């Protein structure tokens, strides 16, 4: 397996720091965390050392990943030059939030210098501290046949649109936004993003029966696919495939397995909120807030409105260092839905409530006292 130790040895990274950690079974690095590139509110991680005898400190800069995380060597080589010039020649490629980290910077000037260098290449930094973080996206339509939304396009739009909130922290805590082009969730948006944006479709999967018959005649096995449909919605009569509109839940499975089955045409995006891995209450799955809205270029009005709403509610009700998920738990999911001004629907629950412990506002009681 590719070795990180070997890689570090090819850089000016103080390998001693890692080797001592291995023998001491303890990190040699000291306090650090979200920091900022001078002139910006964000974009860097400062890191002190516990072993001044080896190295005093070592910072890194977070470069926002490209749409779809595609790179052409011509520009990437320039980024490498900057890493060599300002850093210790080691890269974190990529972080779990799809940033490219340039590591081993020693001072503010270097951070600023590298940022200017990146800017001139059309790249930028940010995504640290209590800001909107980088917005990872799956490759989507760039390479994927299943894409229900233009993930790279939206990544580009959102990053520009929210660049100030990405570079100048102003929220109670970090806001991680992740995108997947379809419910296959290559972007893992619902499970652990504060805000998830996922492509969905409402009508049924489209079956091209002629193509399907051909596919089957080539010896492909449609039966097993029908058997593995989670809701038993597929009916294959050896000539045609019927999908039961009363059963299908658009899980993508048949579409993933059978080229003759494609996602439907009534497409939009779902917005989820509250996913995260730590915070006060520990790991939480995201929750569906906007089950279906349109994501239409160039200005993505509906999407921006919904996204803003979520940020506003968080901004107004979140306590310092409280993740959105913890805030929702504190406020109550029903209250949160109300605050977001969303029409309640079955798409908002895995099951309705299990008690009658709800509050009736005077307003609901038609004046009776």
């Amino acid at each position, binding site marked *: 397996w590719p070795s990180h130790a070997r890689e570090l040895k090819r850089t000016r990274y103080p390998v001693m720091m890692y080797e001592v950690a291995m023998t001491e079974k303890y990190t040699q690095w000291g306090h650090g965390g979200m920091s900022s590139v001078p002139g910006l509110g964000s974009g860097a991680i400062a890191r002190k050392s516990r072993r001044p005898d080896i190295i005093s400190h070592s910072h890194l800069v977070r470069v926002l990943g490209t749409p779809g995380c595609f790179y052409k060597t011509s520009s990437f080589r320039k980024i490498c030059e900057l890493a060599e010039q300002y850093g210790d020649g080691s890269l974190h490629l990529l972080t779990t939030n799809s940033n490219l980290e340039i590591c081993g910077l020693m001072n503010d000037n270097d951070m600023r210098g590298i940022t200017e260098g990146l800017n001139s290449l059309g790249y930028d930094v940010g995504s640290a501290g209590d800001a909107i973080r980088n917005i990872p996206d799956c490759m989507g339509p760039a390479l994927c046949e299943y894409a229900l939304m233009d993930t790279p396009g939206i990544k580009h739009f959102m990053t520009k649109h929210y660049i100030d909130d990405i570079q100048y922290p102003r929220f109670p805590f970090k806001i991680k936004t992740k995108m997947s082009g379809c419910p296959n969730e290559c972007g893992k948006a619902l499970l652990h993003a504060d805000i998830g944006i996922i492509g969905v479709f409402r009508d049924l999967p489209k079956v091209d029966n002629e193509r399907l018959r051909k596919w089957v005649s080539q010896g492909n096995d449609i039966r097993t696919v029908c058997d593995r449909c989670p809701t038993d919605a597929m009916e294959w009569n050896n000539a045609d495939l019927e999908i039961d509109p009363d059963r299908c839940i658009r899980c993508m499975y048949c579409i993933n397995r059978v080229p003759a089955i494609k996602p439907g045409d009534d497409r939009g995006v*779902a917005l989820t909120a509250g996913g995260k891995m730590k915070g006060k209450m520990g790991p939480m799955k995201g929750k569906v807030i906007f089950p279906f809205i349109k994501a239409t270029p160039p200005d993505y009005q509906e999407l921006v409105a919904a996204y803003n709403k979520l940020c506003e509610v968080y901004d107004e009700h979140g306590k310092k260092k409280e993740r959105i998920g913890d805030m929702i738990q504190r406020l109550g999911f029903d209250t949160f839905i109300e605050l977001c001004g969303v029409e309640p629907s079955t798409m908002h629950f*895995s099951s*309705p409530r299990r008690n009658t412990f709800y509050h009736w506002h005077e307003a609901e009681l038609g004046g*009776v006292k």
Partner: protein
Amino acid sequence: MSRIGGVGVPPVAENLPPVVLKNYGKWDTHEIVRPGVIKRIAETGDVCYTVRIAMPPSRISVATMLEICDLADKYCGGYFRITQRNSLEFVDVDPAGINELIENVEAMGFPVGGTRNSLHNIIACPAWIHCNLPATDSPGIAKALGDALIDEFRNQRLPSWLKINLGACANIEEALMADIGIIGVHRDQPIVLEESIKICERPTVIHGCPTYAIKPKGEHSISINPEKCIHCGACTMHCEAILTGNPDLDGFAVSVGGKASNTGRGPDLGRVVIPYLPNNPPKWDEAVKAVMQIVDAWKEGAEPDERMREWIDRIGWDRFFRKAGIKVSLKDIDGYIYGNEFARSDLRFGW
């Protein structure tokens, strides 16, 4: 005073018919001869017939029970039992007399049935008959529902069992244990009778409030935060000077999908799908309509042997609400303690 109590319950054998005693633990199988009539066959070859009748909600008169005793003496050697759903079963009925017994009890107004895939006896709390906390009248609604569904009690033509429970306030929620439940819902804020308040046990009242809506006030009194109160009635339980309930605001919620047995997808509590309907005695039209809608949707959609909850789990809540014609309300979304676990965390939508 001489000590009383300390007795416990009569020995098991004392109230058992001979055939039951003889075959205790030896039963091999059973058949439902006709709705309400179960024939049990023991390894010994002995058989025992039971005849099951529906019972009036919550109260029965001594006079009627004596008539039932007469029937028991005549047709089954004087033994009966009350089931876990408060049906009454004549035990060890002489097969020859079964039809006659059925004619007689039916004539007395007690339908025979409630076995297997039928509506079973309806469970209801006393409510307006004897309690101070009810937000609705369980017996009244039970009677209305029973009348509407009586054919389903007498026949076994439903997809599976149908159990309906009613509790007239949040206390019992027996409702959540049944395929369909009715739960009394208060919507007013409890009133505090300042003059008599001193008698109450203030600490109990205050820490008994699930939403911490109660604060001490003055020497003896308390104040309730109107924004926090969820109308659960706990405070009124613990203090005579706190009253809840308002004729114009009280009503009931409807739940579905409770199930205790470990078959299918296993046991689970029901879920509240209609947060409020108004009280409308004596016909209780809203209750009857809501329940019939749900039952009809289930009858139409369920596979054989599929309980309400299994049907819903199979088609999903998205479709349940559509098929039952129920509009989703904000109150269907759970915000209470475990609320988050009931929030939707997938994209498996049943549009």
